[in-house]
Each structure stands twice: as structure tokens, then as C-alpha cells.
């Protein structure tokens, strides 16, 4: 049976990172839950990814204009960054502050934006919104570069409120009016990008944020009931004070770290799954003066996060699926070798084209990750890797099964695999199907070379079948 401390640690590392090998999970469990949470929350306490090595082995990662190369570097970081929560927060913000390469057309700008999320994603929310509002890629993506004092473009002004901070509404009320959108857009007039060179024939050069006071509407404005000659920064300050912002951020965190929620457009009318959890996160937001790290601490140390009901309560996103598997089986970890490009393309095949979300509203999460095409990709990818019994992480699992004794009953074998592959929660009927399959092949032994060969084969096969279950699609 699964050790409860190990199962809880596996849960934490799946959510606050991209999973881990069995040995890492057990080591962290021995170190203690709260200590591990603090490590995750304080990335500088952990060694950084070895950038020198990474850039030496992949010189192309350095300031690449090609989007595929930047996605590849990011997936490499997801698998290898010892500061796992940093990388997870970069993904969290990328899924909310959506900007996509389809319009930006510069891999380097996309990577700069992700790097900003990585570096500041656990900081102060007010600071993060300012960085977002001065991100050249975002200013261009949402047409703020087209917004002028005499001709306002409302795109950024609207999405800042609707998708990046307040949300349309909560508790059936609206959080802002159409007039607020217009004012918000006016406050951001003049927030633009230094001339971006056309990409050809020499490739894009880095963009710079530029504020042009002459192009800014400096008139008096009333925004969310407050009147003044507001500029973009004042808008951020007012936004951060709103209960709607606390609610919106809390629900996003819950959806990303705890359990799948209803889609964002339903949040105005549909109350949170766990009102007390959301209230605790909202309180952490205000008590700390908008510190994201404080909200995360509240979340990871709470009972609602640790509860059994939160385990495997989210459908894993493709990025979590791919990076998580690599970390579990020990492939493309540490060692830098060919093949990482193909791995980095996998999330796209599973419906998550990283750095290129379908729209500013981002990907639809939860069960919407799954369709008949993406499910085949997920199952085949997972079973391909979990079935490779010579990969270090897989071999380690087989060694542990071997160590359970000279003979293993089919039931003990199935339960051992379920536990080792990731402390999975499988339904009774799934377990029953697997046990019946194992029973047909009989008791497992590993005394002779021939028995050891068959033992290894059956372990690989059972891991593959577990990878194909519906339950394995969750995280």
C-alpha cells in the first residue's frame, strides 16, 4: 500500500512542479512536507538550472528567433529546472496572460515574456501587472500599439480587465462597466512599442516598450468610481484593490493547482467549487499586499489542497503530461542529447501549442484537453516511455518491485505498479481488469535469468497499460 506521506508528496510535486522520480518523491517526503513547500516557494534556495551547460550544448537557444527553438528550450527547462515552482508559475501565467506567436511572429519576444513570468511569477501581483502592461509583446499582441490619444483601441484595456485581473463579474454581479473599459483603454493610450523592424531579411530585433506622453490621453477620468487624471499605472493600482481581482486570481490558482473548475466565462454566475478555499486565498492576497507567494503558501499548506478529494482532480495539461513523464522515467534529465526537439513538439500534438495559445482567452482546460485525437497521442506517448524498461526511472521502479520478495502475486504486482507509477488513484473496475490480466500470466518470480526477463517484460507491459488508463490522464 502507498505510504501516505509519499502519496501527499507526489501530489505536491505534480502540482507545484512537473512531478519527480520515485526516489526524489521519497527523499522529499523524508525531508518533510512544510520544508518542501518552503523550498518550492523560495527558488533561490535551490540551485538554478545550469544555463551555461544548456547554452553550450544548444547554442541555438541563445536569442533564437525561431519559435520551435524557444518552445524546445522551455520544455527542457520544465524537465530540468531544479526550481520547479518557478517553471510551473511561468506556465500558470502563460495560460492566463495569453499572447501567441501567431500574431507576435517573434520567438524571441515570446521567450522574453515567458522569462518574465518565470522570474516574477511569484512576486507581487501589482508589479506583475505593470510588467505585463509594459511588455512589448503584449502591447503589440493586444493592439495597444494601435491605440492613440485621438483614436483609442480598446483591446488591451478590455482584456486587462476581463481576462487578466478582474474577470467579468462575481456572485452574479458585474465587476466593471463598459464605461470602465473605455476609460481603462484611454489611460493606456501612448503605451506602445519602439519601432519593430520587419522580420526580413535579417530577422526581428528585440522590441522595446515606449511611453509617448504626447500620444497619451491625460484628461480626467473616472475608473471604478475613482476620479483623477489616470495613467496606466493608476489603473493597475485601482485594479489591485478590488475584491474582484482577489476572487479572479484565487479561482485561477484553484483551477490550476487544486481541482478543475468550470470554464472562466462561467465564473460570474457559477460560485466556486470550494468557497472556503477561495476565501482563504482572497484573504492571503489582501493580508500580504497582493503577494502571489503568500497566496501559494496558503494554498499548498491548506487542508483543501492536501485532501484526498484534490488528488488527481485535474486533467493534466499536455505540458504537464509530457514534462511529467520525462521527469518520472528519467529521460532528457541532466544529460543533454538529441531528441528533446521531438519531445517539445508533443504538447502541440496533444492540443497545447506552447507559446501559441489559440486566442487571448487561452486553452480550454479540464476534460476539454481530451478528444479522440489527443487521447491517442497522450496514451501512446505515455506508454512509449513507461514501457522502456532500460530508462533509469523505469528501471528503478522494476528494482523496487523486485525487492518486494522472490514471488509476487498478481494482486500485489498490480498494486505495486499502481503505487510506483505515481501513487495513482484507479477505480475498482480498472484495477480489477488489470488484476485479471496479471492473473492470466500467473505469479511473478525473478530467480533465474529467464524469470527476470519475463518479470521485466511484465513490469513494462503493466506500466504501459496503466499509462493507457483514463485515470492516468489526471494529475
Amino acid at each position, binding site marked *: 500500500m502507498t505510504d501516505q506521506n509519499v502519496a501527499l508528496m507526489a501530489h505536491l510535486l505534480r502540482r507545484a512542479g512537473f512531478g519527480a522520480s520515485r526516489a526524489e518523491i521519497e527523499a522529499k517526503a523524508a525531508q518533510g512536507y512544510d520544508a518542501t513547500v518552503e523550498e518550492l516557494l523560495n527558488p533561490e534556495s535551490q540551485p538554478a538550472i545550469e544555463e551555461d551547460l544548456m547554452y553550450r550544448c544548444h547554442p541555438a537557444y541563445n536569442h533564437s528567433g525561431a519559435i520551435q527553438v524557444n518552445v524546445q528550450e522551455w520544455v527542457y527547462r520544465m524537465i530540468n529546472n531544479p526550481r520547479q515552482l518557478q517553471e510551473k508559475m511561468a506556465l500558470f501565467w502563460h495560460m492566463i496572460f495569453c499572447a*501567441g*506567436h*501567431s*500574431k507576435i*511572429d517573434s520567438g524571441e519576444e515570446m521567450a522574453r515574456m515567458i522569462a518574465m513570468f518565470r522570474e516574477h511569477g511569484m512576486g507581487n501581483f501589482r508589479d506583475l501587472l505593470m510588467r505585463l502592461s509594459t511588455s512589448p509583446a503584449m502591447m503589440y499582441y493586444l493592439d495597444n500599439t494601435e491605440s492613440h490619444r485621438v483614436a483609442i483601441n480598446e483591446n488591451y484595456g478590455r482584456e486587462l480587465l476581463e481576462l487578466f485581473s478582474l474577470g467579468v463579474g462575481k456572485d452574479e454581479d458585474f465587476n466593471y462597466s463598459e464605461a470602465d473599459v473605455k476609460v481603462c483603454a484611454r489611460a493606456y493610450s501612448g503605451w506602445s512599442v519602439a519601432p519593430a523592424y520587419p522580420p*526580413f*531579411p535579417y530577422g526581428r530585433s528585440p522590441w522595446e516598450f515606449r511611453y509617448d506622453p504626447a500620444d497619451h490621453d491625460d484628461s480626467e477620468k473616472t475608473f471604478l468610481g475613482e476620479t483623477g487624471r489616470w495613467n496606466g499605472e493608476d489603473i493597475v493600482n485601482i485594479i489591485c484593490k478590488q475584491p474582484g481581482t482577489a476572487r479572479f486570481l484565487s479561482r485561477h490558482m484553484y483551477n490550476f493547482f487544486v481541482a*478543475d473548475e468550470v470554464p472562466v466565462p462561467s465564473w460570474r454566475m457559477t460560485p466556486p467549487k470550494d468557497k472556503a478555499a477561495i476565501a482563504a486565498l482572497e484573504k492571503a492576497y489582501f493580508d500580504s499586499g497582493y503577494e502571489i507567494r503568500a497566496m501559494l503558501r496558503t494554498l499548498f499548506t491548506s487542508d483543501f489542497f492536501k485532501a484526498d478529494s484534490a488528488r488527481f482532480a485535474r*486533467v493534466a495539461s499536455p505540458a504537464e503530461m509530457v514534462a511529467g513523464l520525462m521527469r518520472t522515467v528519467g529521460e532528457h534529465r541532466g544529460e543533454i542529447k538529441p531528441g528533446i526537439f521531438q519531445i517539445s*513538439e508533443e504538447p*502541440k*500534438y496533444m*492540443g497545447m501549442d506552447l507559446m*501559441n495559445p*489559440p*486566442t*487571448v482567452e487561452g486553452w*480550454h482546460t*479540464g*476534460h*476539454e484537453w*481530451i*478528444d*479522440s*485525437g*489527443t*487521447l*491517442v*497521442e497522450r*496514451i*501512446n506517448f505515455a*506508454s*512509449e516511455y513507461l*514501457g522502456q524498461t532500460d530508462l533509469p526511472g523505469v528501471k528503478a521502479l522494476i528494482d523496487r518491485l523486485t525487492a518486494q520478495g522472490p514471488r509476487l502475486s498478481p494482486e500485489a504486482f498490480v498494486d505495486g505498479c499502481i503505487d510506483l507509477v505515481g501513487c495513482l488513484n484507479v*477505480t475498482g*473496475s*480498472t484495477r480489477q*481488469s*488489470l488484476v*485479471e*490480466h496479471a492473473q*492470466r500470466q500467473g505469479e511473478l518470480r525473478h530467480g533465474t535469468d529467464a524469470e527476470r526477463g519475463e518479470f521485466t517484460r511484465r513490469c513494462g*507491459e503493466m506500466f*504501459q*497499460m496503466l499509462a*493507457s*488508463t*483514463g*485515470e492516468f*490522464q*489526471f494529475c
Partner: protein
Amino acid sequence: MASAKKDNVFAVLSLSGGNDGLNTVIPYTNGLYRDYRPHLGIPADKVIPINEELAFHPAMAPLKTFWDEGKLAIFLGIGYPHPSYSHFRSMDIWHTCEPVQVGVDGWLGRAIQEIDPKADNVLTGVNFGRGLPRALAKAGVPVASVGDLETYGLLTDIEGQDQRSQALDVFARMYGPTVGTGYALSYIRQTGIDALKGADILATAPGKYTSNATYSKSTVGGYMKNIAQTHLANFGTKILYTTSPYNGFDTHANEAVLHNNLWTDVSNNVRTFFDDLRGHNASDNVLLFMFSEFGRRISDNGSGTDHGAAGVAFAVGEHVKGGIYGTYPSLQPSEQEEGGNLKHNLDFRSVYATILEDWLGLSSAPIIGGRFDPVKFLN
């Protein structure tokens, strides 16, 4: 008059990367073409003339045979207003028919939903290639996406025929209906059963197929063959889709060689594809459409061409009324699209409208986001 029939099949070959229309259908007698293409202009004695003004690229001889048969429609100056020069965005626009807002659903995803509203056949739409193109994406519309038809299926990494079929047996049982598992898991299990069903059916296609046709070993050759195999297996598939290797047509450099190779490959395989279908008496209900997300810059850059605007597209089929649709965009500087590009005069949605209305028998406006004058290129 074209009449949409229930068993009509629509196939797409997407030419990814931005095909150089100017060197595909070449205005070979136009002096401006010579001026703008000092390095990449195809000499007049090498082209394959269509008429006094236009000619095919020399590599397109196999495609020209369809022209001679009167079964090739050439769409000139095809594009949309306010062109995007980004591969991704422009391809999205062709996929979603949403040139202003960023759209989520694909036009063929919507079409599949209209053809098979209850998703009775999990193979109404089939894509060949990894990952689903946006054109086929629509929530609730199952579309199989096949990387390799010869090995397509679930748990393909399990070695040994017996082991794999046992594993699939277990899979079918694990995904069988169970009570009280929650919405998401039930949904995933239903999807898994659909996928397994689709894979089981598709896996029989190569075995059913006998043919003397020789497709090339290229990606396009492989997938055109897979499209033929799937069509000939009579699974009721109505929409078949594939994409040439990603961004292959993005010929910024070394275009003279690359473009020649690309069109040799495409032309040969399209010819082989129709010969294959004709050999099986199965070409009558097939319409093939080829397009690219944009054309390329009028001036060459010494070795290649950069991203442009209007381009060319083609339709091939027994019911195609061979001919030229749209007009060749002017090369005159005053009549160019901003940035030295060709200006479109034929909206791609007009061609889609005809395909939807006259071939698939669907109402086009809800699918392509409004009314567009159809281009009457079907008999």
C-alpha cells in the same frame, strides 16, 4: 450544374509555408515579372504554357495533364483583405474564416458537425499528420488524426501481436461503462472507446488496399496514399485532410532548387492519387483542394522570396470545370498590395462557399461567417 451528393468526399492538401504563386502559375510573357525576378525568374523556354500569358512551373507537368483533361481549376489572386504575413495567423485565417477576430473553430470542423451532427461515424473526418489542424477543430467533433496509417492505433509500442491485442482487450474493459466515476473520467472513457473504434476500423484500410500505384516516399506521397487507402476502404469518411511538411514552402533562400523539388513531389503524387482512384473506379466523388496560407513577395531577394499576400490555389476532380478563376493580380507598382505584394481579387471564402454548397450540400454562410459569392468551378 453541380449537384451535391451525399457520398461526395472532399480532400485537402495544405501547402504549408507560403507557396510562391508567382513561380507556380507564371506570367511568363510579362516584362515586369522579368524585372522583379532577376534571379528566380523561370526562363520562357522552360515553362509549361497554359495560354499566351500564363504558364506552369516546369516541375508541374503531371498537374498540367489535369488541365488538359479539363479537370483542374486554377484560382488566381486568392487571399483575403488586410493580409497577415505571419504563417500562423494567416493559416489560422484560412482555417477559421475569421480574418479579424481570432477564431477557435475550423471551417471543416463545422462542416463535419453539419454532415454528422450526432457523431455517429467517428471517421467522418480524418486528418493525416501529427496534431489536428485548426481547420478540423471543433468541440464535440471527433476527428481521427493519423500520424502513420500503417501503424495507427492505441498502445502501438507494445511489442508482439498477441501482447498488444491482449492489452487492447484490457483497454476496452477498463474503458467500459462504469457508474459513479464522475463526469471527466466518464467523458474520457467514452472518448477512449471512440478512439479505439476509429483506430480499429482505420487499421483495416492498408490490408484492404491493393494497387499498382507508386507514390513517392515523401511525406506528401505517404499521406496522399493514406487518403486513397481510407477513401477506398469505404468507411464513410467525407473529409480527408493532410499538410505538406511544416513550412516546407517557406522558401526564403535557395528557392530555385527547393520550389522545383516541392512541386515535383506534389504534382507527381496528385497525379498518382487520381490514377489510383480511377484504377479503382473511385474518383468520381472526390474533390481535391490545394492551397497555401499566402503567396510570396513579388521581388526575389537574390536567393528566395519573402512572405507575401495573394497566391494561387487549385482544385482537381472529375466534376471540376477546368479553367482559370479570379484574375492575375497586377504587377504594376501602383496596383500592388502594400509592401510589394500581390493584391487579392478572389476571397478564399468564395471558393469555400462553392465547396460547401455545391459539393457537400451544406449551407455555407454559418460555416464561413457570411455570404460570399460562390465561384462556379464545379460541374
